[in-house]
């Protein structure tokens, strides 16, 4: 390290100043105003029983689900509210890119995960030449701030029982999947969103009670109110395009065929090879289960 360069020079004002002026000018913290910052989502994971560590899988899963929820929030902000929307693959590369989160350095001694949206404003409509000529089209830029805002409002609506009918199925199921971390080793997952002025715009804590609220909202969306049957097994084949899967179950040689709606994509997308509980209408042939019309699915933690 370089030694501080000593000098015998004193500034002229100091030589001429009184002790009072010297003291008054000795301290200077700073001056300036906070610049605009990136919109942010800050996630805080609270381990159960005061533990000071978490499984890598839990942390990565929470980060992954936070990103997914941000994608669904961006879809709402860009394309408009669509409660039926669930298939992230059809979201479009532009929306996915717009809502990409960048993780900032973690704070030491905590599981606080600050993430920001660095994307430029999204221009949803490319006006064509004729429309431009007519001067009647002004594509309105959408700021990434609107993603953070929608992210917060999705959680707020669930918490308060507000306009949950506006929330996409994909977003609901993504929140529901946080339950895996809660069941495993987490007591709560907190989300805070911040605008470009670094002002906190929302805060929600996701715990078991919150997940129960999500479950109820999803339950209300079931096409039928029939009592659902359930079956547990391992997904051994999956065709997302066709909305079909094959389930191996204990005590039965023949695999069970399952059909599902696109709204179950977020849950089933990563179910291949995993233990799963499916809810729906079961069909039997000579006491053997042959198929299930899937209404609901729960992927088990494989750890």
């Amino acid at each position: 390290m370089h030694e501080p360069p000593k000098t015998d020079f004193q500034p002229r004002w100091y030589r001429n100043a009184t002790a009072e002026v010297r003291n008054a000018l000795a301290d200077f913290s700073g001056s300036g105003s906070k610049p605009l910052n990136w919109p942010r989502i800050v996630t805080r994971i609270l381990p159960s029983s005061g533990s000071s560590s978490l499984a890598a899988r839990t942390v990565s899963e929470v980060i992954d689900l936070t990103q997914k929820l941000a994608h669904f929030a961006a879809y709402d902000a860009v394309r408009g509210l669509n409660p039926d929307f669930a298939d992230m693959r059809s979201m479009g590369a532009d929306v996915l890119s717009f809502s990409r989160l960048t993780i900032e350095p973690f704070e030491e001694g905590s599981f606080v995960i600050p993430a920001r949206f660095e994307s430029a404003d999204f221009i949803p409509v490319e006006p064509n030449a004729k429309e431009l000529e007519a001067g009647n089209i002004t594509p309105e830029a959408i700021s990434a701030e609107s993603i953070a805002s929608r992210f917060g409002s999705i959680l707020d609506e669930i918490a308060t029982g507000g306009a949950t009918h506006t929330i996409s199925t994909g977003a609901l199921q993504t929140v529901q999947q946080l339950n895996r971390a809660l069941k495993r080793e987490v007591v709560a997952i907190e989300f805070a969103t911040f605008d470009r002025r670094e002002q906190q715009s929302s805060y929600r804590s996701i715990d078991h009670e919150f997940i129960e609220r999500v479950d109820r909202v999803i339950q209300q969306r079931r096409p039928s109110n029939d009592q659902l049957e359930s079956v547990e097994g391992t997904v051994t084949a999956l065709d997302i395009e066709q909305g079909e899967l094959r389930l191996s179950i204990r005590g039965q040689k023949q695999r069970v065929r399952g059909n599902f709606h696109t709204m179950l994509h977020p849950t089933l997308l990563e179910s291949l090879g995993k233990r799963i509980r499916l809810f729906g209408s079961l069909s039997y042939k000579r006491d053997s289960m042959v198929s299930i019309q899937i209404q609901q699915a729960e992927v088990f933690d494989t750890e």
Partner: protein
Amino acid sequence: MSTGAFEFVIQDDAENWYRLDFHVYDDHAKPWFSSVWQRMVVALDAAHKQTATSLPEWAQWKPWDWCEKKRPGYEPRQTIVAWCGGQMAGFMNVWSGIPSQIDTGQTTLYIEHVAAAPWNQNTELWRRKYRQTGTALLAYAIKLSQDQAMGGRVSLHASNNSALAFYRKVAEKRTPQLFYGEKSGVTGPTPHGNHDVSKTYLETTPAGAINFLEDYRHA
């Protein structure tokens, strides 16, 4: 006028003086912001939470974020870091060529941020290492303005009463006067400049600024 070199100096508690060097923000400065500065602020924040006292305003700043160049609209900003030996002493974010609010057709060096490093400030947890940092930074900003053909004109918004009191004290009883009359309702040149309208705007007079800069000439 003397021909000696300028020496921008700061003082320790034993009243020894030390020369500052100034460099544009680079990778060498980065860890001082992202590790040292940030960690001291985190520690101070934790201490204030424990004692249920309010964090000083400067500790709510995130200069380690501000130095990143990729944020849209902030490309013209230049970050100047003051060094005392191998240790950072403070920094400034400045914008060149900003129109004067007083002299039509003239430009100024606008100071968006100027701050002493946390270790050069007294807090609940530590005593400052060096003092008189603010005046040295202001003098260097005037030199930059002069070097970049803005005649020593420097403009800024005083962010709060404490900053305004500091600038008033620097300018007190100086002849020629250091600042033109205080103005309000002036928009800053940055993307968040409309948030500065309510703050007091100050602009140095060329003669007053050069006179203040000369205070730092080692004859």
